[in-house]
């Protein structure tokens, strides 16, 4: 029983303890490293886009259409792409909202919480959300051929609408799902119909709709693979739904693959414009969630 003695006097830390402390510090080191890498990556992306873009960006570029010989480095700008993107994004977001708001209401007000249909529907929208935009593009393209449509503004709007509907629905649904059902019951017990109750729900999930909208705007303005097939490209601003239309991401992509430095520089400028738009949208989204969500019942 000699180990008694060794125990009664204060001992140094055990080997295992030392080992686990070393492990702890090593893990901490790796974590700091990961955080630093992530931050450096973000900084690098932002810095690269801003520094390269700012050098090339001029007022003329964002206010004029491509001139003659634009793609071999002659003058002109990419207003066509900016306006084209805005057309597609605004139209598709509007149509998307018209379709998806009723679906969200249906899922959350009409259907019971444990409904099978709601489960399957949510799953389906999640899956649709995950389908890559190139597949949407390819599918929409075959549809358009089937219906005898040519690549056009209409095609671009349609494919972007299809693309953002799952995003709109699922992100609004996340907010609506947390909506306290007691409030519904309170409304019903006051003798309100389902339709009137929707007004109550609407007020509660308004910030949710706003963030969802911003999210889908951000997604559709940056999407290139979908519109590549369906909207085509054009050097002018379209005047009807059946004309081809340019978009910012595609404009960046095409200009960057040109061999001339001048054209590539314009791609960097366009990339800067796109980045600024997207950053503003995401800041706005953050602001709305922070500002308005605290007024709501949780």
């Amino acid at each position, binding site marked *: 029983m000699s180990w008694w003695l060794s125990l009664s006097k204060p001992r140094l830390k055990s080997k295992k303890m030392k080992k*686990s402390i070393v*492990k*702890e510090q090593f*893990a*901490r080191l790796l*974590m*700091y490293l*990961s*955080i630093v*890498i*992530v931050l450096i990556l*973000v900084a*690098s*992306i*932002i810095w*690269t*886009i801003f520094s*390269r873009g700012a050098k090339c960006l001029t007022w003329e570029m964002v206010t004029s259409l491509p001139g003659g010989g634009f793609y071999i480095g002659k003058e002109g700008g990419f207003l066509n792409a900016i306006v084209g993107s805005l057309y597609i994004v605004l139209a598709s977001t509007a149509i998307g909202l018209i*379709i998806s708001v009723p*679906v969200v*209401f*249906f*899922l959350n007000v009409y259907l019971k919480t444990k409904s099978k*249909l709601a489960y*399957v529907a949510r*799953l*389906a*929208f*999640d*899956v*649709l959300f*995950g*389908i*890559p*935009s*190139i*597949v949407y*593009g*390819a*599918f929409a393209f*075959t549809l358009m051929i089937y219906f005898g449509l040519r690549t056009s503004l209409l095609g671009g709007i349609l494919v972007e609408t*299809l693309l953002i509907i799952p995003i709109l*629905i699922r992100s609004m649904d996340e907010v609506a799902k947390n909506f306290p059902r007691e409030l519904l019951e309170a409304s019903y017990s006051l003798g309100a119909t389902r339709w009137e109750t929707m007004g109550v729900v609407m007020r509660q999930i308004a910030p949710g709709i706003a963030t969802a909208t911003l999210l889908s705007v*951000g997604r559709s303005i*940056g*999407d*290139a*693979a979908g519109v*590549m097939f369906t909207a085509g490209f054009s050097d002018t601003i379209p005047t009807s739904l059946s004309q081809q239309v340019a978009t910012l*991401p595609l404009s960046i*992509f095409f200009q*960057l693959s040109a061999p001339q430095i001048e054209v590539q520089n314009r*791609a*960097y400028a366009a*990339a800067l414009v*796109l*980045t600024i738009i*997207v950053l503003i949208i*995401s800041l706005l989204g*953050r602001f709305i969630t922070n500002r308005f969500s605290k007024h709501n019942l949780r």
Partner: protein
Amino acid sequence: MRTVTVVALLFVLVMGWGLYQKSAPILGEIPLWNLLTDSTWQPFKNQFGFLPFVMGTIWVTIIAIVISLPLSLFTAIFLTEYSRRCVKKIVYPALDILASLPSVIYGVWGTLVIVPWISDKLAPHFVDFSAGYTTLAAGIVLSIMVLPLLVSLFVELFSSVSVDLRDTAYALGSTRWQTAQKVVMRKSLPGIFASVVLAVSRALGETIAVLMVCGNLPQVPQSVFDACYPLPALIANNYGEMLSLPMYESALMFAALLLFVVVLLFNLVSRIILRKIEEN
């Protein structure tokens, strides 16, 4: 409203069916197995071997996950287990920015930063020459694109592990890392798996960014410094000329079908698992 919901459900099926109809001609001519294992790609000689594209996709995705998984795991553990508010205030907006940037911007950044870095700094240590437009470049760019998705999924998983469970582990004398590793991560293991599957499916379909840095050579990449040609890039690059040959169009639509089916399955699996975790 019920109709709208049901139509949305049918849309998944219609999409699969439409793509299948379009790819039926090539599937009728060349057996599926040959399509996937043949590596000769000469559309104008009617030879459609998808092996280079399939391998390109797989390689790029594996590289992306290998890089982003440890990075996002450590970041998420740090955010949920270690950090105080001030760190979160910097890291979350940074991740938000990553998540909101369009893929073409990642492409631009990739060609400006990653491609020259690989061709000038990294590749000379390993191979004689590399243009920089490589499988590795595509993998790196892709890994950063799936990073915010993985981190946000992980953070959600880890913060759903109850405080009591952590306290229990601490009270037994665990260090923070032991708690994170043996309790928090172990408890979220199914969720981590599902998240990775989801990230893989996201990576599989990424088009423009990858297209801009991967080199676009229809070959089976032998090393990470070889150019590759993933499936989405194949579709995007050739949509213009595909109408010239019916079989060519069918081949590209088969590529889209392939992507659709794989992404659909991966998404279903991961979403069902995540849903189950959320319910508990």
